[in-house]
């Protein structure tokens, strides 16, 4: 296995439902 220099950074993810809400609100904001 490759040697890793440092631990990877955990990318926090929204849930599927939160993602959809973000998506809907972004679409509304766009003209």
């Amino acid at each position: 296995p490759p040697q890793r220099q440092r631990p990877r950074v955990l990318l926090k993810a929204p849930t599927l439902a939160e993602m959809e809400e973000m998506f809907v609100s972004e679409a509304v904001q766009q003209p």
Partner: protein
Amino acid sequence: HPVNIPRKEKDFQGMLEYKKEDEPKLVKNLILDLKPRGVAVNLIPGLPAYILFMCVRHADYLNDDQKVRSLLTSTINGIKKILKKRGDDFETVSFWLSNTCRFLHCLKQYSGEEGFMKHNTTRQNEHCLTNFDLAEYRQVLSDLAIQIYQQLVRVLENILQPMIVSGMLEHETIQGVSGVKPTGLRKRTSSIADEGTYTLDSIIRQLNTFHSIMCQHGMDPELIKQVVKQMFYIIGAVTLNNLLLRKDMCSWSKGMQIRYNVSQLEEWLRDKNLMTSGAKETLEPLIQAAQLLQVKKKTDEDAGAICSMCHALTTAQIVKVLNLYTPVNEFEERVSVSFIRTIQLRMRDRKDSPQLLMDAKHIFPVTFPFSPSSLALETIQIPASLGLGFITRV
């Protein structure tokens, strides 16, 4: 324009570079506008998933968390959007279920977590993500895959539903068994009426279509097995429920016909190497109901045999079949009230539910066993037909 100098595959690192502002175009061309029946037919199975993952790899390589987040969010929303638009099309749903699972497997295979690296080549291990741990996004993708799976089940259910009663119960392929039709059976006098009738062959043809589409899309064999098990459950449950509601379906000859139909479905499973899918087992209640129509129903010994044979049926279902049983010729007779009483007494200690009809809408929980790919990312080429000229192989 930059000059395109062909490079050897070993020079590529299995990444795809794209500009942040091209992300909407990437999602549009690769997800929203891609027609599974058109361009996608000639693609290697799972190509959209590999392309998206190779884009993620490049954003990870740049250590650009915003770019990674944005691409993953747009990808997930793009898939949801196309499934909202064409969610009743089996091919579209199967295509995106296969690709979502492949994308999920890639995120695991190249996560750098030892448990997922066992089958990787040295080169594949060099392609693991460097900067970010995407475990939380894997969870979101897994949730999305579950949603898509449930959508796939609803689509195939809508297609199969109108075929089941006609193909499994009404249509008779065994000639000369029934002789006289039992009372209450509508006799078709016009051949025109039969033209729109589904037969067992219609069902088998439909199963073949579903199966070949899923294989074409490179769906994981373990996932195909789960879809097939679910299809068989629907066929079995809808058939049994209709048998339990129709007196004209409860005769010795119908039992014979059902057993023949079930044997054909089993033959299909064998032919497709799907005997270990658990699909056949979902037909057990129907198989036992068909046997119940055919066994002797007179003596105490008969009652004992029925009770030990019909373990997949509830008491309510057994009693209902016996009550509905209708002789079609002079060699058969109705089941006596005392025989039914004997059965009820013998079954008294069984702690089964009072349920008569099966829940035909039940969906078995789905799992997506990890399935790493041997494909080398650095060898993947992007066909011009995808319209992704704005991304560069790195």
